[in-house]
């Protein structure tokens, strides 16, 4: 149905795509697999009309086509849901969904009522229980993603490209998404599905195309290959997967949280944490699993002093009670937070790698009030070396690094504060398989050095891969706690599913 032949694309002398071939069939979920930088996103941007300047041919229903802009691609029936959300925060859900294709009355006035109604239907179909008039900035990343999907569904596109649609949404929502994808497949639409999560692909995809270094490596049917085959094709070699952790007997108390309560009430954001009590020992990795809205992120934020006004409870670090009014207090107490959204909250993208690493510890690289470039270089070199950050130089801007390396920079800037407790919120979101493994190894190594680590994740395999102990959140309370030896996908999920639904 949609065929791309010998597509090549250069960016200032660098070959992003080299004679790539792709065939997309109706009624199938076509997976595009490859590491970050393999050329997936570039190829999708060509198919959806973002890049008009490329070599090669594209055929839709057998006719040669060339889109000059995204609008033409949309009109031809190709919709794309970008990995980077493209919603306008100040507009409401309805306004975003109908942006550029507003419904009007005879005289050009907006037909608010009809748009609102259709939005409500779309949201219901996606099981997102929100008021269509809610401004998008009030939504969490996961909910915004669902709105993006609703936006694409509205166009009745023939080809729907989904670029990492599940990178930010909870397993519960993934289930809903898969049901929708299944419906679309039955309606004989063509779905192009890009994801790093191989487990997902085996659940949902019919056929695959693997890209590596801008070239097509192989295409085929999903059944008949296994995970190891795919990984080998993606990276061109075997990848060692981090081994299963054990429930060690950790003895030294590090962190004790007693009866933490939190209440954030807003128009659409209503988060509540009730009587959260837990402990963390030195050298332990505590995995926290929960669905969207379970309060996992807010729990970490409270431990980092971000909700001082809305929370109550007692926090002890190594037996001493501490008061956290703001992030500075938390940093002083030896707590570090690697936030969920590294581009928004983790990095200053316009600053270079070494400036980002030193940002938390500028007072330590000062001599008589003057920043020492020498000390800063030593600091940056240390972490670039220790964490294996791949960057052309320490003066490279943070925005030019790949996702995995950006995450390592964020971790570096926190390790520089010599924390005792490291809080990680979705540490591998949007990072490719290879880089994920490196992050896992890093986390495990840090724990071995005696750090206490709390990792929040919405990916069960990740929780199971490196945690020593698992705590499950649901609707703001702890519903289960188990050592890793007893943790199974089934019992974790069971505890995570909200009772009130």
């Amino acid at each position, binding site marked *: 149905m949609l065929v791309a032949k010998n597509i090549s694309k250069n960016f200032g002398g660098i070959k992003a795509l080299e004679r790539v071939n792709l065939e997309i069939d109706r009624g199938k979920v076509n997976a595009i697999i490859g590491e970050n930088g393999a050329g997936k996103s570039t190829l999708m941007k060509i198919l959806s009309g973002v890049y008009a300047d490329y070599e090669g041919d594209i055929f839709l229903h057998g006719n040669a086509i060339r889109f000059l802009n995204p609008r033409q691609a949309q009109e031809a029936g190709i919709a794309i849901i970008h990995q980077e959300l493209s919603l306008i925060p100040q507009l409401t859900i309805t306004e975003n969904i109908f942006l550029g294709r507003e419904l009007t009355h005879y005289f050009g006035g907006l037909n608010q009522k009809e748009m609102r109604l259709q939005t409500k239907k779309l949201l219901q179909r996606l099981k997102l229980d929100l008021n269509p008039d809610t401004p998008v900035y009030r939504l969490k990343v996961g909910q915004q993603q669902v709105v993006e999907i609703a936006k694409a569904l509205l166009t009745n596109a023939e080809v729907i490209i989904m670029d990492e649609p599940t990178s930010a949404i909870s397993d519960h929502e993934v289930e809903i998404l898969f049901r929708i994808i299944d419906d679309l497949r039955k309606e004989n639409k063509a779905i192009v599905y890009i994801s790093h999560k191989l487990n997902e692909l085996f659940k949902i995809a019919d056929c695959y195309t693997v890209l590596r270094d801008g070239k097509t490596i192989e295409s085929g049917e999903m059944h008949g290959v296994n995970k190891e085959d795919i990984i080998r094709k993606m990276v061109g070699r075997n990848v060692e997967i981090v081994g299963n952790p054990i429930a060690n007997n950790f003895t030294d108390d590090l962190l004790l949280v007693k009866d933490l309560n939190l209440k954030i009430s807003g128009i659409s954001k209503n988060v509540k944490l009730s009587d959260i009590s837990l402990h963390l020992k030195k050298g332990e990795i505590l995995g926290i699993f929960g669905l969207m809205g379970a309060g996992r992120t807010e729990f970490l934020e409270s431990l980092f002093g971000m909700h001082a006004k809305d929370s109550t409870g007692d926090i002890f670090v190594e037996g001493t009670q501490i008061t956290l009014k703001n*992030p500075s207090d938390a940093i002083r107490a030896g707590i570090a937070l690697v936030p969920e959204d590294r581009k928004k909250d*983790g*990095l*200053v993208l*316009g600053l270079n790698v070494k400036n980002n690493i030193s940002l938390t510890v*500028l007072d330590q690289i000062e001599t008589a*009030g*003057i920043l020492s470039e020498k000390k800063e270089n030593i600091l940056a070199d240390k972490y670039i070396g220790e964490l294996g950050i791949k960057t052309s130089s320490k003066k490279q801007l943070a925005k030019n690094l790949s996702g995995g390396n950006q995450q390592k920079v964020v971790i570096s800037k926190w390790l520089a504060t010599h924390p005792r407790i490291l809080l990680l919120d979705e540490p591998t979101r949007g990072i490719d398989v290879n880089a994920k493994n490196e992050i896992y190894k890093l986390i495990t190594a840090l724990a071995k050095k005696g750090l206490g680590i709390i990792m929040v994740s919405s990916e069960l395999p990740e929780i199971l891969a490196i945690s020593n102990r698992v705590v499950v959140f649901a609707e703001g309370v702890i519903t289960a706690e188990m050592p890793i030896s007893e943790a199974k996908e089934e019992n974790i999920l069971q505890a995570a599913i909200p009772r009130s639904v």
Partner: protein
Amino acid sequence: MLVKFQSLLALVLLCFLLGVMTDIFFTYANLINVMRQISVNICISVGMTLVILTGGIDLSVGSLLALSGAITAGLLKFGLELPFIDTFIGFTLFGAIMAGIITGTSLGAFNGLMITRFRVPPFVATLAMLTIGRGLTMLYTKGFPISGLGPQFSYLGTGWFLGIPIPVWISLIVVAIAVFITNKTRLGRYIYAIGGNESAAALSGINIKKIKTMVYAIAGALAAVGGIIVTSRLDSAQPNAGNSYELDAIAAVVIGGTSLSGGKGTIGGTVLGAIIIGVLNNGLVLLNVSPFWQQVIKGVVILLAIIIDKYNSKSNG
């Protein structure tokens, strides 16, 4: 790079053209004159650069310039009378100047407090201060100039040292300190971090409110320095001094390549921007261009600067 290559090229080209078209552009007297004329704008623009680097804007600098100048002049000439307790305080030259700078600094800090504690957008907070400052100046001077401030004070605006006017020295010192702060101190790094990504900066434990308040206070202090130079040069504090100076300062910052959304830009670029505006003004006067056309041309140059800047950043990224 300290300054943008194309801005430098534009300046060289402009100077070359003026050198060909007029006889007096490349004379010592004229070049020194240009430098003296832009020294006030450089002081204000440096403060403006710091503010814009944090992602803010300061519209009040022209008014703060007038108020600080008037306070310095008034205290120097009349001293301070406190009728309720029947006291009179006389001011030395140094005391009067300090009082002017303290006035600028505290009202700048007030801007910062409004912006950080009460979350008033910088544009609005400083717009309010623009009229408050102007009003206070009118109240203090009763609408009349305060003149005849003595030879000691006017040395600051009209004197020379090593063949260079004192105001140029002052602006050079201000630039040197600002370059040092932006490149070599924690404050400077925090300013770039806040402008680049406020949320990430806050999560890194940086006290955003404190840094921003400091930056607006610095902008106010530098406006006061400008006010003292202007007052001293004219030997008179004019109630309407510094009118629309904020626009020249913003123009210098923008031509110098600093991003209005914050996080990107240099003091060096701003200095170059101020020089380009100064040379342009001077050249248009030398060429006998009507003042009305001068304004139009200045506007066109600002637009061109932005367009070239956007075009460059696009082709680089």
